[in-house]
């Protein structure tokens, strides 16, 4: 079981309130991603759940029991750190067995569980090596192995892929997702990378300046961002945000249209000049300077023949226009 509830959780370092007030429920078995720009409090929030930091006020329940003042070891959670935090003086086997040894399991039981974890994570051939002799991806697996042997109520991941190269990141992303599908244990995953959030999460929590901006499934956030911050943060390339007369015409302070929801047409409502073009093969991203002075990004076909300086006309798909009020909140 791994249901985690945060009630009015507040964290201050001295005078600075890093997390002013957070209420959040994480259901058992969910894969929840905390995402936000650096300094938004997502790692602090994870460390509060882990018990590595004290809450200043509020309550954290794990499986219905108040865990606010429990030390990390007593919360039944396992954590995978950004640096993996493997014990450099122990072999892979001993690293994975460490939590079991701390829990006082017998040698045979330790070995059985280590073997099982090693099999799941393809580490069987590396059990007698030390972390220093492993590649980044293997270290990552050892860190995960050390987490899963404990059969925790929930896994906490603190930016676990940020030290890996791009290709490895994609494959580890899939491995972690598959692991979640196999284990069906609650996972809380912190990242600043919205692509990781979108691809892995059941539920995304977007954080900004210690506050929750929006909670929802990836597609909910993509299709119905609750405010300008979420609109700008989720989706790649970023949603185009335009103010002024165009927005006013829609009865909004700001309107947003994603690059993929703009069509290049003979005569649309927006006109501009093509600036930078990025050819990705499958797609082409065009920077277009509109006559109003706004610069927007447009996704076009990979084969598009437009070049720098060409004049084009654009039509936003009417049902894909997001409207935001002066307070930044989405208008219904």
């Amino acid at each position, binding site marked *: 079981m791994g249901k985690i509830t945060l009630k009015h959780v507040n964290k201050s370092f001295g005078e600075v309130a890093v997390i002013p007030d957070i209420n959040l429920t994480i259901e058992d078995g969910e894969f929840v991603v905390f995402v936000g720009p650096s300094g938004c409090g997502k790692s602090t929030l994870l460390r509060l759940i*882990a018990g*590595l930091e004290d809450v200043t006020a509020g309550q954290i329940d794990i499986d219905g029991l108040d865990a606010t003042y429990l*030390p*990390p*070891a007593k919360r039944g*959670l*396992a*954590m995978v*750190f*950004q*640096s993996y*935090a*493997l*014990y*450099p*003086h*122990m072999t892979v086997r001993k690293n994975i067995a*460490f*939590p079991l040894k*701390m*829990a006082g399991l017998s040698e045979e039981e330790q070995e059985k569980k280590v073997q099982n974890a090693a099999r799941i994570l393809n580490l069987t051939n590396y059990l007698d090596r030390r972390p220093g002799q492993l590649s980044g991806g293997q270290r990552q697996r050892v860190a995960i192995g*050390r987490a899963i042997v*404990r059969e925790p109520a929930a896994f906490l991941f603190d930016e676990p892929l940020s030290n890996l190269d791009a290709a490895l990141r994609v494959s580890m992303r899939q491995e972690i997702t598959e692991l979640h599908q196999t284990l069906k244990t609650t996972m809380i995953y912190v990242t600043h990378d919205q692509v990781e959030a979108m691809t892995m999460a059941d539920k995304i929590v977007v954080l900004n300046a210690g506050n929750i901006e929006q909670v929802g499934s990836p597609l909910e956030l993509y299709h119905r961002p609750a405010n300008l911050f979420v609109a700008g943060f989720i989706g790649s390339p970023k949603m185009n945000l335009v103010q002024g007369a165009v927005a006013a015409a829609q009865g909004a302070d700001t309107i947003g249209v994603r690059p993929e929801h703009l069509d290049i047409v003979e005569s649309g409502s927006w006109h501009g000049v093509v600036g930078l073009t990025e050819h990705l093969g499958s797609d082409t991203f065009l920077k277009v300077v509109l006559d109003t002075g706004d610069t927007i990004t447009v996704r076009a076909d990979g084969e598009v023949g437009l070049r720098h300086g060409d004049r084009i006309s654009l039509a936003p798909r009417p049902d894909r226009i997001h409207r935001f009020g002066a307070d930044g909140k989405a208008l219904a």
Partner: protein
Amino acid sequence: MARATSPRRKTLTTIAAWSVALIIFFPVLWMILTSFKTEASAVASPPELLGADWTLENYADVWSRSDYPRFFWNSVVISLGSTLLGLAIAIPAAWAMAFVPGRRTKDLLMWMLSTKMMPAVAVMIPLYLLFLQLGLIDTRIGLVLALMLMNLPIIVWMLYTYFKEIPGEILEAARMDGAGLIKEILYVLTPIALPGIASTLLLNVILAWNEAFWTIVLTTTKAAPLSAFIASFSAPQGLFYAKLSAASTMAIAPILILGWFSQKQLVRGLTFGAVK
């Protein structure tokens, strides 16, 4: 540095470096040479490098006239004992300062170091009287305590600088894995910091071995280490050079050999956080 150097320049710098090193080392070498000379040869003019009549007699003489093994054993017990005790007290303190730093951590460290600036002579008499009261004069335990306290600030400082280089996440991982504080320090911190702890141990064994003020003030015979042994030999000025050299060599040989064997480890650790 993988930089291009002409062979000529390499030869020149090699000669220069070796000359400087030999000049620095020469006094020790000369002492060792003198210890093998006869007394007449030791003061011969012009000086002899090593006479044809070199001898081991000086060593035999010093050995038979003094209880060298006792002094030696006292030195071992006192220097090792004070350092190990110091480590046992300093490791937790350095853990706290490195991993749970507060606003006052740096001040605390500086205060600890400043206690070492108090001239020993200034508090010699009160400490002597205190030790007398506590029955610690001329006991090994007394010297172990005194030297432990004398070197404690250095031990804490060295450990602190090593510990600071260990990522806090590893200790947090241990905490998440269910290790309590003691297990965290014993099973995770200490093994990771072992190289640092080893050089701290080495340096402080050397400092304690070479300590020659408290060892002389606080001992008479039973607990006297080699620094007190040599003090008793240096009295006759300008006389018995060969015997004095033999006794001196015997006093420094153990630590010189230990130091030479562990010099890599020691030098690496001698940085006090000065090298990042």
